[in-house]
């Protein structure tokens, strides 16, 4: 099969690879680049576990053809922390006990980051809407909502 050359920015680093036609971004990230932070959940856009940011916008990598991100910038959970320093969202998730099994956590964090990047002072309703495409089986959502609100507050305190 003919492979398509593909270049994009992955967490601030340029990557170049060859992909088969029809390969989705989730597979490209996990199997070709080795970034295991986006998770495979349902493969049909129903759970949000594979969420990534493409040019700052929240996307489901399982439903995104890898070829369509040529020249664009991809952010995943792998690039969220700054060196040894956790992102305020990651700290808030820990402090609020917002993860149990952890499988939804990467997608939740990306959905939350997409929200805070465009709205640093969200209401509770804003947070609920922002994570409503992400399924969590363990936490009951309450600690996740509280964590995102806490991260927004701490972000404003630093600014």
């Amino acid at each position: 099969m003919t492979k398509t050359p593909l270049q994009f920015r992955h967490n601030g680093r340029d990557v170049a690879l060859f992909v088969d036609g029809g390969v989705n971004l989730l597979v490209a990230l996990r199997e070709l680049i080795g970034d295991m932070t986006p998770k495979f959940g349902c493969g049909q856009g129903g759970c949000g576990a594979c969420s990534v940011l493409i040019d700052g916008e929240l996307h489901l990598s399982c439903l995104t053809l890898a070829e369509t991100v040529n020249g664009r910038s991809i952010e995943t959970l792998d690039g969220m922390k700054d060196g040894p320093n956790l992102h305020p969202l990651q700290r808030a998730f820990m402090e609020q006990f917002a993860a149990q099994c952890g499988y939804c956590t990467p997608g939740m964090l990306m959905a939350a980051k997409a929200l805070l990047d465009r709205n640093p002072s969200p209401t509770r309703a804003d947070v609920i809407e922002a994570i409503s495409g992400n399924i969590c089986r363990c936490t009951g959502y309450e600690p996740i909502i509280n964590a995102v609100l806490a991260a927004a507050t701490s972000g404003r305190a630093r600014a």
Partner: protein
Amino acid sequence: MAKHRGRGIASINYPIGMNLGGDPSQALVHSNPSGKFTVSLSSIDLGQGMKSVTRQICAETLGVPVEDVYVDTADSDTGPHCMGSFASRGTHRVGNAVMAAAKEARGVMMEAAAEELEVNAADLDTDGRGNIHVKGAPHRSISTKDVAIAAQFKQGKTISGRGIFLVPLSEVNPETGEMSPATCYAHACLVAEVEVDDETGEVAMMRMDSAYELGRALNPRLVEQQLVGGAWMGISHALFETPEPYYPDPAHGPRDFVEYLMPGPGDICPHDIAVLERPAADGPFGAKGPGEMCANPVLPAVANAIFNAVGVRMDELPITPEKVLRAIKAQGGARPQARR
């Protein structure tokens, strides 16, 4: 057509562990020459906090800082045997096994320290910060690290311990069928408040207030996390989830997350939780376990709240809008019950 508020209550007992084969779990504890301890388990932590709680239990029993304990649950082929992470048994069964193993390891550690300090082991105590000292004479002390080094390289001792917890098998009374499946029970009571739309049959959760009695809460934040998340699962079982087809043809069964419905972050409600602690006589530091019982009271409380709101008795789960609507129609309209 209107929305009706209703309130329902439910109380439950929940057995910790089971009776089958004595429900055993084993644990091994050993130190390495740096004075850090490893707990070996086959008991799997799938997010419920097994590693955190067994780490606390081991550190407390050994008398060392919690930072000095590592819990390894790597492999059920090579680790000591465990029945598994189910039946709300982890904290109680595995915790007891870890406690027994840590107790034995502590005995060896104190003997090794006694040899180094040239005193009787019975006169020694731990300070919980990584030192062992003569009772009443804190200056006569040795660090657990130095004890571990001496045991390993000088005395030729392994600072280690084995633990198992096994419940006495309860025979079934052939006359009555009576038996004791568990050695202790956790208890809960929950009040649910719902709003039922008699035009659509939809049930909205408005509020929950609950009290859980689960022995001693060894890690209060993990307990709270379990109770909050478990109550969500209770709502899900009460109102949303089913693997069965909504219509007789199995082809109408749910196939994916679009059809297998669960409450989203917009479907939850405020939930006030009170944790009551009545230490269990046979629990590790009195703990029972919040495991599965956290979801159970929600289902009957919601069913009772729906009866209180519109007067229909729902006895099949999940209580979908269609079932509620059919029941309301069958009785000729909503009949709100008295509020108490």
